[in-house]
């Protein structure tokens, strides 16, 4: 698409390079939109998934492998994926100015595919021992805990998946959760319950992680102390809504409110994937939302020609 009034770098900039952003990139390329994808971690949280068993065409695939296939498809279509962090977005006459930690770009349309971030539990020792026994990425770090004793914090599906993965290496895995029941899908709960290495500690909170140079001990709110080598934190996720807030985008519990076309309340800005207020947060639905957002951006650009 051409703009005769002033030079605009891109028809479309997609902020976020997870399944939503990458799929939006594929659709944008096939609609011949001059597009840039930018993100900090290609694949986002999905790239750190141990196994994805519900994405059509693959009975079972690692998050990294699935994302690499998506990335390759985007690259083959001639779309660049840049590792840039967006600092600010400003509305301009013909689109938007996007300031990143490296440069400035402008684009006529934007898709926010910001994904979600892992929640910190904000207890003493969490930050100090990051990389020294504290981990947010079981796929990356589980192999370093061979024959060790570890805890997994959380009771959701991601905590269960992490426990199962870590149990392949560690000699003992304790799941520590606030509530009195596990919240994952039944298939995962069943696998965890029959795994002899995994022990579940209900109705408990971790309040401190201690050690000399690495994790050695944790304290619980019931006064109990445990000798532990590793702490995997899977305490849920939060939407990174700062950019959306800056732009005055309407939010619902931190998630961007979108309509069926993935449009936000600001013309020219679309949103897709885990950052939106849609009900389901899965790789397949994120990809679908990315496709819809790219097609909607194309339709809007076509009308403005």
């Amino acid at each position: 698409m051409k703009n005769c009034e002033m030079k605009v770098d891109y028809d479309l900039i997609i902020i976020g390079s997870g399944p939503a952003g990458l799929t939006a990139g594929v659709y944008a390329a096939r609609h011949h939109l001059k597009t840039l994808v930018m993100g900090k971690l290609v694949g986002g949280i999905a790239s750190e998934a141990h196994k994805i068993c519900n994405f059509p065409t693959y009975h079972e695939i690692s998050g990294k492998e699935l994302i690499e296939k998506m990335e390759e498809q985007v690259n083959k279509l001639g779309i660049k994926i840049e590792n840039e962090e967006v600092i600010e977005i400003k509305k301009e006459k013909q689109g938007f100015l996007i300031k990143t930690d490296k440069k400035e770009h402008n684009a006529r349309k934007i898709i926010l595919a910001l994904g979600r971030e892992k929640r910190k539990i904000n207890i003493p020792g969490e930050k100090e021992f990051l990389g020294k026994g504290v981990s947010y990425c079981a796929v990356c770090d589980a192999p370093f805990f061979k024959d060790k004793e570890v805890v997994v914090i959380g009771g959701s599906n991601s905590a269960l998946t992490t426990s199962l993965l870590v149990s392949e290496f560690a000699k003992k895995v304790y799941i520590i959760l606030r509530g009195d029941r596990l919240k994952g899908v039944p298939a995962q709960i069943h696998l965890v319950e029959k795994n002899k290495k995994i022990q579940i500690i209900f109705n408990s909170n971790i309040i401190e992680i201690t050690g000399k140079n690495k994790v050695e001990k944790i304290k619980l709110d019931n006064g109990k102390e445990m000798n532990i080598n590793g702490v995997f934190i899977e305490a849920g996720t939060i939407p990174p809504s700062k950019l959306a807030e800056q732009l005055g985008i309407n939010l619902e519990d931190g998630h961007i409110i979108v309509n069926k076309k993935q449009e936000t309340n600001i013309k020219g800005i679309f949103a897709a994937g885990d950052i939106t207020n849609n009900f389901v947060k899965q790789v397949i639905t994120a990809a679908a939302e990315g496709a819809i957002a790219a097609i909607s951006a194309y339709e809007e650009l076509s009308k403005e020609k």
Partner: protein
Amino acid sequence: METEIEVKNNEFERVLELSSKVPVVVDFYADWCMPCKMLKPILEGLAKEYKGKFVLAKLNVDGNSEIASKYDIMSVPSVKMFKNKKIIGEFSGLQQESAIRKWLDEKL
């Protein structure tokens, strides 16, 4: 002078010797880790840009488990800067280029 090297077969003495002449930034990575894949080109780019102010040593923990164990690697990516055979700085996890640049400027 070369700006990056690859450590193989636990041959780390070469890195320590080199660190007596120039700071060496060791990137402990694994092929199974996506954040490692993202960090690699950032470090490679910075190694070129800093033109020999430091040498980047890439170390795959899979083929260098003794070294990874010796330096208590419990997470990848882990980055450690060696000078005169001693660790003078470190960080773990994927960081933005601007943050790594700041870290390098502080340490070098």
